[in-house]
């Protein structure tokens, strides 16, 4: 009986744990704290944080428990991540929730979304410089798009063994927007520039809102067909919302469907950070390069807005460049708050959302382009 008891003890998490598990449990708890107490992107950080806790409970391998064991429940749930199903579903919901009217009213702001994607390509060079393989480098670079589902989608296609660290890096930096972006914005702009007021946007007709998803999917997916799983779903979701005849579908896409996908995506990505797989020097490199990518993306948008101001009559507030990354709506909110700090009557939120939505399209196109380089 005592032998049986000892045998049982030898199979408990307490016995099997080593310091790496405790490190990851601290990381998971930090995510939960940031999401719950600080309200930093709670919809992402809470499921991911809890997933990290679950994924780092030590277990006896071979029982079909862990996410990397082919017959486990978690493994089946993780299937949606490794095949890119969850990111596509998230994009469907995102499209159904996004109002593109601010972008349609000011199409020139789309260029800021394009400029912010430069962070991706600088980081691609950086990752190659540090010795990552090309497919890994491309997956790391997409963190610069500041779009969690897009990062997961591309990594699943190019470097599935890095999904954990890349997803955690992408979502961490999205949650840390209030910490990362403001210093870069302050550094690259003068007070006078931050005070620039944007003109009120014109009213956009329903017909324009209906034509945009159709034109968008045709133009973007003819250019980068590999972006189809993301952009196809994004524009489908948006068309469901705008056409007004399938409100039931649009409502489901923007609530139940995206919520379900977010829960499973966040939770399984969190679970995938098993200490033995996650805590490697490579992961540290990915975190470092991810921070670089995000910072360069923010800086590229701001600098490009300043360059545009040299050529156009109606000046753009360069803070909006920082919203060119596709972290919706975090970066637009941050730009808005910084604008308000300088001038309480300067409302930049809707203009920031225009840049944000073009950033979503831009980063999905980038993912398609990078994937196509290796097809």
């Amino acid at each position, binding site marked *: 009986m005592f032998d049986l008891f000892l045998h049982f003890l030898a199979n408990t998490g307490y016995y099997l744990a080593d310091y790496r598990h405790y490190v990851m449990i601290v990381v998971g708890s930090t995510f939960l704290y940031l999401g719950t107490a600080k309200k930093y992107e709670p919809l992402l950080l809470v499921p991911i944080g809890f997933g990290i806790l679950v994924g780092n409970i030590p277990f006896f391998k071979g029982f079909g428990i862990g996410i990397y064991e082919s017959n486990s429940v978690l493994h089946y749930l993780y299937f949606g991540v490794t095949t890119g199903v969850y990111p596509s579903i998230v994009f469907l919901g995102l499209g159904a929730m996004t109002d593109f009217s601010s972008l349609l009213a000011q199409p020139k702001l*789309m260029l800021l979304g394009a400029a912010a*994607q430069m962070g991706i390509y600088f980081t691609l060079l950086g990752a190659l*410089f540090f*010795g990552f393989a090309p497919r890994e480098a491309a997956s790391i670079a997409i963190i610069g798009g500041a779009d969690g589902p897009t990062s997961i989608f591309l990594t699943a296609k190019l470097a599935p063994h890095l999904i954990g660290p890349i997803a955690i890096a992408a979502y961490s930096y999205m949650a840390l927007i209030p910490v990362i972006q403001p210093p870069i914005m302050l550094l690259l702009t003068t007070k006078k520039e931050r005070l620039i007021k944007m003109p009120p946007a014109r009213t956009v007709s329903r017909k324009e809102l209906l*034509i945009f998803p159709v034109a*968008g999917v045709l133009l973007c997916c003819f250019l980068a067909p590999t972006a189809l799983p993301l952009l196809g779903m994004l524009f489908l979701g948006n068309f469901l919302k705008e056409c007004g005849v399938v409100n039931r579908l649009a409502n489901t896409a923007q609530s139940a469907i995206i919520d379900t996908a977010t829960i499973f995506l966040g939770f399984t990505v969190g679970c995938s950070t098993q200490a033995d797989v996650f805590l490697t020097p490579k992961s540290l490199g990915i975190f470092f390069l991810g921070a670089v990518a995000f910072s360069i993306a923010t800086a590229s948008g701001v600098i490009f807005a300043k360059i545009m101001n040299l050529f156009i009559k109606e000046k753009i507030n360069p803070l909006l460049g920082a919203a060119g990354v596709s972290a919706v709506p975090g970066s637009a909110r941050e730009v808005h708050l910084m604008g308000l700090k300088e001038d309480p009557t300067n409302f930049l939120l809707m203009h920031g959302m225009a840049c944000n939505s*073009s950033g979503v*399209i831009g980063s999905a196109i980038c993912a398609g382009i990078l994937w196509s380089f290796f097809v």
Partner: protein
Amino acid sequence: MIGIENITNHNGWAMAAVGATIVFSGLVVLSFVISQIHKLLKLWDDREKLLERFKKKAPPAVAEKVDSPVYSERHLPSVDELARAYKPLVDQLEESFKLSQLFEIANNNDMPHPHLSIQRLQEADILVARGDGTFTWNKQKEIKA
């Protein structure tokens, strides 16, 4: 392998340059297209006005035919004769009437070329528009006639 050599060996420079160019040009094209959507829609909404404008510009040939002395002289009586012929018809109508009503009565009375006749009466200011889509008979002109 690390450093610049790794970038060069894996075609990194080309990937970065081509990728950045494609995404930039793609979004520039998309922004151009969406900046034109409302203009195209406005054109589409105003298509009838545009067509009318084209029609108004094109017709000199038709107008010439209608106004041509050969046509009017050969097939239509003079304005005075027309006024005399149409006065009894107008008297059957109310003070203000629609041209379609006059046309209908003229047709029923087998008047020749009712369209052209009514048009000539209009041109001669015998039929005067009231501005609300109806017409009246100009009595002063009638006296002259």
